[in-house]
Each structure stands twice: as structure tokens, then as C-alpha cells.
């Protein structure tokens, strides 16, 4: 992935360099998750509660000092343009100062949640991730959004919901990624 502003590169693609030449490799999702960050929350929770559980799990795994501040950042982003897709995936995210790589967690919901911003959409899986708040990391951030949205199509989400626990869910994700 390449991300640039006018100052960085000519706005016009360089002759001979097609977008495919500039296109980055797809990000692997499976390695970003672990059994500790794949959750199966209990039914009856709303989206904010699920996000809180996820943030705590990811923060604990990565050793983030202030999970509350991180959650606030995620909820702030959630106030903006919707992160929920027609496929049943919600993709909350935030860009954090002080981290060097991607931190991610997944919540698989046995019972669908209603998206508070788009009540017509049901959420069946929540993929939360954090990327470094650096300009050079934004391409990776976008690539991850595309990659996760592409991977978590409705059939996979259905199968994840039916899986018995984090280990099976992780195996399923890694298998789907190939």
C-alpha cells in the first residue's frame, strides 16, 4: 500500500508504473490474533460493552497502560462514519500514539447485535484493531481495513459463530486466509 500527499509524489502516476506495480501485498490477518484476543462474549451485551471487553483483552495482551483512554479513542471514532458493513462485520479501529505495530482482537457474537448508528444492520462479528498514529503507517491501516472487510464475508462469519471456541475460530480464520 502506498499513501501519499501531493508533496510526496507527483499526483499523476509515473508513466509505466501501473497501479498494480505500486500495489502492496495483502496484510495477513491471522497472525494478528491470538486465542487471548478472540472472544465469544455472552449474549445480551450492546456494542459498547463488547468493545470494552475487546479493548481490555487487546490492552492486556499488548501491555497497554491505560485501557480506558484507548476505549475512549475507539468510541470517539465510532461517533464518526460508520464502521459496520452489510456483511455483519463491524470494524472499529483507532490510531494510537506509542505503539509500533498493529494490535487486534476479534469478538464473535453468537447472537447478533444491533448497530446503534445503523439499526438496520446486524453485527455478527467485531474486529477491533489499533494502528500506530504515524503518517507512514496509514497505508497499512487502510490495507488492513480492506483486508479484514474482504476476509470476513458473511459465510465465514456464520462459520465463526458456529465454532466452539477461540482456537477453532483462529484455525478457521487462518485456513480461510490460505
Amino acid at each position, binding site marked *: 500500500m*502506498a499513501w501519499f500527499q501531493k508533496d510526496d509524489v507527483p499526483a499523476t502516476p509515473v508513466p509505466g508504473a501501473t*497501479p498494480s506495480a505500486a500495489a502492496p501485498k*495483502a496484510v495477513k490477518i491471522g497472525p494478528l490474533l491470538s486465542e487471548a484476543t478472540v472472544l465469544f462474549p455472552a449474549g445480551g451485551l450492546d456494542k459498547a460493552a463488547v468493545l470494552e471487553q475487546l479493548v481490555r483483552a487487546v490492552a492486556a495482551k499488548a501491555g497497554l497502560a491505560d485501557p480506558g483512554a484507548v476505549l475512549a479513542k475507539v468510541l470517539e471514532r465510532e461517533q464518526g462514519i460508520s464502521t459496520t458493513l452489510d456483511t455483519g462485520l463491524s470494524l472499529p479501529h483507532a490510531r494510537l500514539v506509542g505503539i509500533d505495530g498493529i494490535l487486534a482482537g476479534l469478538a464473535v457474537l453468537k447472537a447478533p447485535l444491533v448497530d446503534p448508528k445503523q439499526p438496520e444492520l446486524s453485527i455478527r462479528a467485531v474486529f477491533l484493531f489499533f494502528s500506530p498514529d504515524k503518517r507512514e503507517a496509514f497505508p497499512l*491501516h*487502510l490495507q488492513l481495513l480492506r483486508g479484514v*472487510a*474482504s476476509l470476513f*464475508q458473511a459465510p465465514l462469519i456464520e462459520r465463526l459463530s458456529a465454532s466452539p471456541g477461540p482456537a477453532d475460530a483462529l484455525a478457521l480464520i487462518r485456513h480461510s486466509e490460505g
Partner: protein
Amino acid sequence: MLSFISFWRASAIVLCDLASTAYYIGGIVETAVGKSAPWFILAVMMFSYTIRAVYMESCSMFVRGGVYKVVKEAMGGTLAKLSASALMFDYVLTGPISAVSAGQYLAGLLNALFPHFRIGWHLDPGWFSVVFAIAATLYFWHENIKGIHESSDKALKIMQLTTVMAVVMMAWCGLTLWLHPARLPPLTLNFSPEALGWATKFGWLKPVGAVGVVMAFGHSLLAMSGEESLAQVYREIEAPKMKNLERTGLVIFVYSMLLTSLVSFFAVMIIPDSVRLSQYGDNLLSGLAMSVVGPHWARLLLQVFVVGVGVVILAGASNTSIVGANGVLNRLAEDGILVDWFRGLHKKYGTTHRLINLIVGLQIATILLCRGDVYMLGEAYAFGVIWSFVFKTLAVMVLRFKDRRPREFLVPLNIEAGGVEWPIGLALIFLALLATAAMNLITKKVATVSGSIFTAIFFGMFLYSEHWNERRHANAHSSEEKFNLREENDLAQIRGEFKKERRVLAAVRDPNNLLHLNKALDELNSDTTELVAFTSRIRTGLGLVDEAVTMDAEEQRLFTKVLEVAEKHGKTVTPMLVVSNDPFYAIVQAAQAVGASEVVFGVSTKLSAEDQLERLAMTWGSLQTDNPPVRLRIVGAGVEHAADL
């Protein structure tokens, strides 16, 4: 889809009209002014270079820089309607004079050939040419109903053939003059009584020599009829538009100068006086073919070739006249001068078929009225063209003072004095045109009477139509394009229609914020890349499937602006409208459906560039499980964000 033509095609369209006059101008002018005709034809052809410059300057200000638009901007609607009415007279006569002349040539050839095949027939050239002219006009009516691109193909082929004929003819005439040297035509004027018109009543004009020169110049002026088509084809010319218009102007100048002038000189120098007008007055080039050196069979073959080419180029001039008249009427219709009904698009071809029907109807009526008399048509013909040139040049001159925007092209000879740039060149051209037009009013009775009546009728029609439109639309008047909408239930269906290797989708919404579209057009190589200008109509709730495919006023305005911008660049763009409940889904679905490798957006007033890109990346991924790359660009004033996914 809005598509554009090369300067060769544009030249061919204009030349079909301009160069075809070589076939009849010599006979008409010599009948009027005597053997000095070629000198005046040469003078007119040289003068046409200045008219080319006037058209270039007007086109540099307005993409649709025809006489109506330019005169309206400079001097208001009434004079604009008057000048457009005069121009319509020119277009309505261009078709008939060319097609009838073609019929005359064909009749002459057939009558010459019949004895060789022991056929005892003799065709009446007048009626034969009427039948032929109607057939040719109907053929090109059908071509124009199908669309300009198809018709420009034909024009190009016609001009390629004409070039071969011209080279053969010039070489053969050159050889003839080398073997049998002849003197150049005299410069003395010998007006026919008909050519003097009402001037005989003004005895004081006779001793003034310059008056005779202007009179003869006026009689020869139709040699440059066709220049006005430059403005009509400019809209269709591909980028770089002005450069290509300049090339078109140069091609048509050199070509018509050589063909029309030389042929006229050769005719007077080679065809014996005894038969030139009596036998070949209406088919002078046939006479030239039969008068060059060589055995009879070879000259007969040359005549067959010359007539064959003549028939196609003259018939092709019918095409150009229909294209030109359609362009003028379209402009008037867009401006609310013609009732909306005329702007209805043909269901299959998307052309303004009712306007084309009107033009062709008038042309066929003219053909029937003239009963095959080329001289009569020629006499009437120059009225429209000279007056439209007069109005146009005056308007361009007025605009120099009224609109001081920098132009890509200026008519030369401008002198700065007292802090003002004085358009001396334009003023001289205007004075020459005005003097000629005024003289023609006196000398060309047929032109003055028929031209005035026709112009008055058209002017009245425009006035009434405009008034009717104003009453009907009250304050809702607009100058928007008509679009030929085609409904597709599945976006994937359209992918196969894009044949170029690369596709770019530009998402448009606000007609006042098309900076990103301009940028995309700047960079666009129309030969290799399709550009889709996309907008979505956002609807929530049920019932989307049944939504009728008609554009609302806002979409109409948006796409009108999109076409204006594309025309300015001279590059092809395909407008697309999708009904959706989410703009991001709509954009991504459309981009993926057409196989876009690049999607260009304007800067949003509601979302940050990061939010826009994040949402697009998510939506792109959710709708596409494979991984073809795409570049997303957000282009604003002085800023550009891009991301390769």
C-alpha cells in the same frame, strides 16, 4: 458516452462542404463576372484564412462558439437569433446546392456515356439532379440520425478519395498546360446583367472601379462557404482542442486553396470558351476532364473518376450541412429558443432526430423548388454565409472590449494605444465583410429576396418559440443537455462495453466542485483509458427497484456541467448514475463493475480525507474478495491524497 474526433475527421467534415464548392463555383462565378472568375475565387480563398482566425478566436472563448453563442454574448439575443437565422439559410442551401450539383455531374456523365453503349436515352439534367439530390439527402439524414461519429467516418473516406482525384487532375492539367501553354485568365470584369442586379439603378456606382471588384468578390464569396462548420466541429474535436482546431483550419485552408482555386484556373485556361459555360456550366470539372490531353477513352475514364468523386464529395456536403445546422439548432434549443420537443433524443441513437428531420425537410423542399438549377441556388447561397460572418466578426470584435479574459488565440494585428488593445485585424476583416455583404444586397437579387424571407421566417419562428418556452417554463429556464438514459439492472452488464485497457471512475456530486474531474481529464489518455463520471442518487427505504430512470433537475445540471468540462478538454467521458442507499457502496460497486483501476473523488465538505478513505477501503474489501489493485485519489484545490489498495 460523449466522444470526440481527430482533427483529420474534423477537417474532412468541413472540407466535404468547403472543398466540394470546387465542383460548381467556377461555373457560377464565371457566369456572373466573366473569365476573371478564378482570380476572385483565389482572392476569396485567401481571405478565408482570416475567417478561420475569427472562428478560432471565438472558439477559444466558447467551446460551442458558433455564431449564435458569440453574437449573443456580444450583442444580445435579438441579433443572435437574426444571425443564426441567416446561418440556417446557408446550411439549408448548402445541402441542396451540393446534392443538385452532384446530380448535374452524374446526368452529364450518363448522357456522355449512353452513346458509347448504344443507348438512345437522354436524361433531363434538372429533374435527374432533383431525384438524385433527394436520395443523397435522405441517405445522409439516416447517417446523422445514427450519430456524428458514424458520419465523420464517411467524410474521412470521401476526402481521401477526393485527394486522389485532385492529385490526378492537377497532374493531368499540368501536363496539358505544359504541352499546350495557355494564358492566365484576364483580370477584366464582364458582369452579366443578372449579376448586376439592382446595381444598374445606381449609375454613380459604375465609374468607381473598386465597386466592381467588391461586386465580383461578393459573387465569388460562396467559395469559402463551409468555414462556418469550424465552429460546429470544434465541440467534437478531441484534445488538445485549440491546437487541433488550428490544424483543422490549416488543413482545410491549404486543401481548399489548392483544389478550388487551381481547378478554377485550369477550367478557364484549358476548356475551350465555346463549350465551357454552354456545355459544362453546371459540371465544369467534367468539361475539364474532357478537355485535357490524351486519347478520348482516357479522358472519358478521367471524367468517370471525377464525377464519381464529385458525387460522393458533393453528397457528403449534404452531410456537413446537416451536421452544421443540427449544431446551430441544438445550441438554440439548449438556450430555450426552440421548444423542448425539438430536443427529444432518438431512442436508439441518442441524436436530436427532430431537429435533423426539420433540416432535411427544408433541404428537400429547397431541392424541389429549385428544380435542379445550380446557378439559382448559388445566387441565393451566399446570403446566409456572408451575413453570419459579418455578425460573427463584429461580435468577436465587440467581445474584445466587453470580455477581457485571456484567449488561447487572438486574430493577429492588435495595436496597443492609450492603454487599450485595438483589434485592427478584426476591424479590417469586418469592414471587408460588411462592404461585400452590402454590395451583395444590391447585386444578388435572388439571394436578397429569398434570404431575407427565409431569415425573417426563421427569426419569427425563433422569437415565437422562445416566447412560448418562456411562458411554459416561467422562471425555470435552463440550458441543460438532453441525455439518452439506458437502464441496467446489473452493473456487471456494462463492463463488456468498456473496451479500453484501463478505466478510471470519477465520483461527481456538486456541479460547482469538479476540480477532480478536471484533473482526471487533464491526465486522461482517451486512447487507452475510459473515464466514467459517476454519481449516485441516494434513496433510503423500499421501492428502489421500481424507481424510474429519469434524471432530476440536480442530476441534469450536474451531468450538463460534466459534459461541458469534458468538451472543454475534448476527451471522452461516460456519465453514469446509480440509485443506491449508500454513496460509498454505490461508488465501489460502480468502480468494481467497470473494472476501475483508479477512483477519483473531490474533497468532501462533511468528511475528512482519512474518513473518506477508511470507509472506501472497508467497502472496497467487503465487496471484493479477490485482490485487484486500485488507486483511490482525493483531489482538492492544491491538495491531493492518494492510496493504493
